[in-house]
């Protein structure tokens, strides 16, 4: 089971988190083409190595995190708030 460092709560067990998928996706503009939306909603890269992904500390502080995980080893390389905000500025 992964041990995920939450910037607010420290290292916590994976069961406290919910996976949120690829963190590098950029939401298309509202008037983007259907093709852009299909790309955004359905198509994913499957890298062997560092993968930027979203996790929510759902059984903890409820914050969404941006986590870098090596898909080959499951090593957590980095974890940070989903958006640039300082701890304590949680919504």
């Amino acid at each position, binding site marked *: *089971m*992964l*041990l995920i460092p939450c910037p607010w709560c420290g290292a916590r*067990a*994976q069961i406290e988190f*919910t996976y*949120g998928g690829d*963190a590098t996706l950029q*939401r*298309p503009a*509202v*008037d*983007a083409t*259907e093709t852009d*939306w*299909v790309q*955004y*909603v*359905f198509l994913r890269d499957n890298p062997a190595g560092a993968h930027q992904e*979203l996790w*929510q500390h*759902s059984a903890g502080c*409820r*914050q*969404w995190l941006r986590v870098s995980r090596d898909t080959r*080893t*499951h090593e*957590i390389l980095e974890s940070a708030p*989903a*958006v640039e*905000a300082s701890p304590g500025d949680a*919504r």
Partner: protein
Amino acid sequence: MTQRFRMSAGGAIDRSRRLAFEFDGMPYQGHPGDTLASALLANGVRFVGRSFKYHRPRGIFAAGSEEPNALVQLARGARTEPNVRATTTELYDGLIAASQNRWPSLAFDVGAASGMLSRLLPAGFYYKTFMWPAMSTAWLKYERVIRAAAGMGRAPGEPDPDRYEHQYAHCDLLVVGGGAAGLAAARAAADSGLRIILCDEGARVGGTLVGDDVSIDGLLGSEWIDATVRILSANPDVVLLPRTTAFGSYDGNMLALIERVTDHLAAPPPYVPRQRLWKVRARRVVFATGAHERGIAYQDNDLPGTMLAGAARTYVQRYAVRPGSRAVVFTNNDSAYAAALALNAAGVALAAIVDARGQGEITGTLARRARDAGLPIVAHAVICCGHGRKRVSAVDIAPIAGGGRRRVDCDLVCVSGGWNPALHLFSQARGALRYDDTLTAFVPRSPLSHVVAAGAANGRFGLAEALADGHAAGLGATGPNLSAAAPPHAEMEVGAAPLALWSVPAPRRGGKRFVDLQDDVTAEDIALAAREGYTSVEHLKRYTTLGMGPDQGKTSNMLGLALLAQATDRSIVQVGTTTFRPPYTPVTLGAFPGDERGAHVEPTRYLAMHDWHAEQGASFVNAGLWKRPYSYPRVGETPEQAANREAKNVRANVGMVDVSTLGKIELQGRDVAELLNRVYINRWDTLPVGRCRYGVMLREDGIVLDDGTTSRLDANHYLMTTTTVNAVKVMQHLERLLQVDWPELEVYIASVTEQWTAAALAGPRARQVLQAVVDIDVSNEDFPFLAFGECQVRTAQGAIPARLFRMSYSGELAYEIHVPADLGRAMWEALIAAGEDFGLMPYGTEAMSTLRIEKGHVVVGAEADGRTTADDLGMGKLVSAAKWCIGKPLMNRPALTAVDRWQLVGLTALDGAVMPRAAKIVADLDRALPNPMLGHVTSWCWSPNLESWIALALLAGGRTRHGEILWAVSPLADAKVRVRVGPPCFIDPEGERLRG
């Protein structure tokens, strides 16, 4: 009965006490310190079970958890357990065990006598015979035979009477295995301030050192163990867990351990769990897991009396048992000489030590000692077959180069084909392995950053090097600072390289040379699989079942893949290993749920008004984790009859239902309306304060996510309700949007589902009831449909603040009243009292469901099933053209707008028939199968108001089919019912009642 094969002295057993036990109905005795296997051997019991496929006689092969043969059925009744390894079962007084895989008895087995199984079950039998399309007929033909013959023991037929516990732990260093290397590692790291856990499978830590005649720091093996354990036990930072197997190694250095707390006791004390499942997070792990000896595939190498050489040595030294009277040792390496010396010292006659290596290669310390002791060593030779029926009586030996065979009488064959480091857990932790040609075994390629293997597990098979390796691994965990004790010292033994010998040709055609004793896989099976193209080791495993038994091939896998390499002219490195998976040894299923069974599987959520509902005799239904009233049966009523009465009363008078389970989310901030515009299909910036609006949310792909009502409480303050089932999902959805996608929106959200309790009051007389308890005017003029307001409810406990909403799920004039949760019962009872004169009845979820089906309201999870669009549900016109929302860009893809989309319709059963549950809809009953499915019933009920069975359904092109007569069929229920298609709303389609 006497223990004929028990030695009069030595061993780590307590001769002062005798333990009585029973095997296959016969009484025997043993001593504390025995395992079931050692006690059976002490009593001369060699034949302990029959093999899985061929039902061949089998004896005890090993002395530890790698045992492939001696699996027994332990105990009786509710505590009976199949496939228990006799070699790891501690003996206790009154133990009862029975052999497995035999019928009618161990000595005479029908399956074995007929030879039927051997012909029936060649390699790949299951694949060849049961591949579709031949499968169905073949299975019918063979099923009874296979079911009778196969199987490993019997599961208990009664509920498990025992408790299991879960324990979480953190430590700086986890040492798995308490043999020489593990103890050295723990000793080296202790006193450094690190928190250490050391676990060991055995009742007594020490591994093979227990009873061994070696010297460490001038102490005998057992003495050194005791001294080291004393040091560790005195250290408050060290936790010693005997009888504890680490069975799984997972990401983030989490290991799963199973501690057998009471399995060794005749009568488990009350209030103590039988087993404890540990989940340990370790900063560092040392796998001092030892090594497993492997056999050599020669003909009839499975006869009882054949065992691993290291096991024979353990039985002699640890258990003071002579496993035979006259032994032949067969080896390709040095270690078996230690067994030969031990047997010799114990008075077992050594008929021959058959060493496949040449005289010049047999140069190790141990071999020299054997030679000095006058033991007969036959170099450059092999055993080519065994003789005997229910136990070995002789073996044929021959020069390895071929030539004249010679028969040697014996009742014990000790085999050593080399040693495999036990790297199961290291490998699960993603440690890479490499094949070492000198050791003829896989060893760790390199340590991981926080995980190392030490001792025999690291290929350091000699005692001195294992101690040094363990010591170094322990120091590796502490850092360089320490004034650590010197490494434990043992005499260095000179070793000679082993010879890679895996099999010996069979003298007799068709002779069986077993590789995997547990699964009855032979060298011939592996050759056959290779010829048939199963050259990947993973394919070989599944095709032949090699290593797929409960022992996971601990003594056989290496042999199997070496033979595959030979058969395919590849190196062992090219063949590789199969993936190691947890559990290392079988784990009782009860340990996984632990205390989370029965009602404790998941939490139960009770409504604030639960006690009131229970007092009124409600029958309850599970809605997610919630307990909700299904209906309130009166004397003589079934719950269904009660629901019909309640549903009728709502339309005739007034009813009240507890809707507290609805998800409630408070939203505040400048940009709430903008957020709502983006997440709902309809428009929200136009919603005035004091009004509610129904909304539908889509997923990004255009499919319906959830629906509910959101109310504007104040300029920047809204309350959203979600469906009960999606309360958590919607909250998470909004959190993600606000935190990740649109952090610029100023919106603060909080889930208040459990902070507010809610009642829906519905029916033509709802207003009169409500007006009697609230302090605001709720007339149609002052409080119209979809109004929101705050008010006070007069209750027996005084006035309480409430939020009042005019919205309707039933289609009647209806209100929702929300009050702080702990005031819920006061509000509820005030309304019940006020309703007495108006015919108010509480109603449950069943009547609520009937009312909403009659009204054609959809439920997320039934009508919206993860494939439905808003338009499918008839809500396409809700989509605002004036703005963007989630799901909008993709909701008009061709497949989502096709004319034959399954669309929401209402169905009425004709001919007085009962609507079958979950029926499919077809046009013509007489069509050839498969009859094209036009749609399916999503919700159905008896409508007491229409006096007919009705349903909501999703039907291909449904909106153009109103008036058609179709069939709702349920092959499972053998029901076929004519139905008339119509609009989903059966009652008051104009909405006059709810606006009235």
